[in-house]
């Protein structure tokens, strides 16, 4: 796929060409209705650094920055952006999927419904614990380093423990695809499959922003702090 996205293109053109980017606009506080304004202009309106915005957009399209590009970019908004993303998943996407699952569960035998919903609950707790760790350990670490203070935490600890949280989401799809009784041609089931697939893609992109932007950035901060 050709990735030609530039600061001076229209924001409407950017999201028309790459509709998946619409999902992350709200995490930057950017609202729709941008008329014919350029990416630069829309970012400026919402106090977003355009270079950083483009860095994240490109990562979502599978193009990751070099260390030089990361160092040359203003990273002030990295942590706020990631926090917003976490809040978005936890307070919007997951409850949305849960509502769909509840509709499905209503038509299941009670004992299946119970274990089905508690499976999703387990997944949500796993995601939530994963985010909590980042907010409790990694983000404060970044703040400390940015304030040019020393810190005993090391990002390598995070890299080692940054497990994948995809497994259960994949399992959920398999269960809906293959094993739930009587859900064929069921609108709720199809809607939720679509939502789960888009959440799964989104979370994979989110994880790659952390692996390919956050981690190299923090490593470089750690080296300069030494």
């Amino acid at each position, binding site marked *: 796929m050709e990735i030609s996205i530039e600061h001076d293109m229209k924001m409407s053109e950017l999201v028309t060409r790459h509709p998946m980017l619409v999902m992350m606009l709200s995490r930057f506080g950017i609202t729709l209705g941008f008329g014919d304004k350029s990416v630069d202009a829309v970012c400026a309106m919402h106090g977003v650094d355009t270079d950083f915005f483009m860095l994240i957009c490109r990562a979502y399209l599978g193009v990751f920055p070099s260390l030089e590009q990361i160092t040359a970019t203003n990273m002030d908004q990295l942590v706020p952006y990631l926090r917003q993303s976490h809040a978005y998943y936890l307070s919007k996407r997951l409850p949305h999927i849960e509502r769909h699952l509840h509709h499905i569960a209503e038509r299941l035998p009670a*004992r*299946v419904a119970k274990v089905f919903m508690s*499976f999703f609950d387990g*997944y949500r707790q796993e995601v939530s614990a994963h985010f909590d760790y980042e907010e409790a350990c990694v983000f404060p670490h970044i703040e400390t380093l940015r304030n040019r203070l020393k810190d005993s935490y090391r990002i390598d600890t995070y890299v080692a423990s940054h497990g994948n949280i995809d497994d*259960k989401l994949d399992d959920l799809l398999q*269960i809906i695809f293959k*094993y*739930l*009784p009587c859900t064929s041609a069921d609108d709720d089931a199809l809607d939720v499959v679509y939502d789960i697939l888009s959440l799964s893609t989104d979370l994979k992109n989110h994880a790659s922003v952390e692996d390919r932007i956050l981690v190299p950035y923090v490593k470089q901060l750690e080296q300069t702090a030494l």
Partner: protein
Amino acid sequence: MKRRVLILEPSAVVAKGLVSLLNEGMAVWNIDMVAHVSEFRNKVRVSPPDLVLANPMCIDSPDSLGLPEGCPILAIVYQYYDPKLLAAFDGVIGICDDREAITAKMLAATETAAPTRASVAYELSKRETMVLVEVAKGLTNKEIADALNVSVHTIISHRKNIMRKTGIKSVAGLTVYAIIHNLIDESALL
């Protein structure tokens, strides 16, 4: 189709005795035997067996033999071995076992094996279903191995097959599967 069995046993008396015992009555096995590891490796390469019976004395560990994935291996035992060593095998055939006992162990071992290229089965075998139920209850591989009286190695290979057949990776997901298929009662959940 007869299952291909390859015996690795340095003693001709034991090997030939085993073959003649297994060929009594209706022959369900297609048996070949070798006395040395080098010969064994060649055979495995030329015609991969469905089941291996090997004397632990001949090998460092079952994993070092380069067996095709999912090919079970039973130990032929007529002297003392460290239980830890034997635990790496999928089962043990004793020199005093009778024909029925040996056949039962061999059948149990092949039943758990991954299906061959020709047959792509998605149905869980009886044994896999038993393992799945224990996994869903929250037992560890070690606990399941002890309960079913097989090696941890065997449980791991069952779990791989369960994962491949169901498409479900997490324990919690397997629990949902078990409940949907009425394999366990919710009161069995921890």
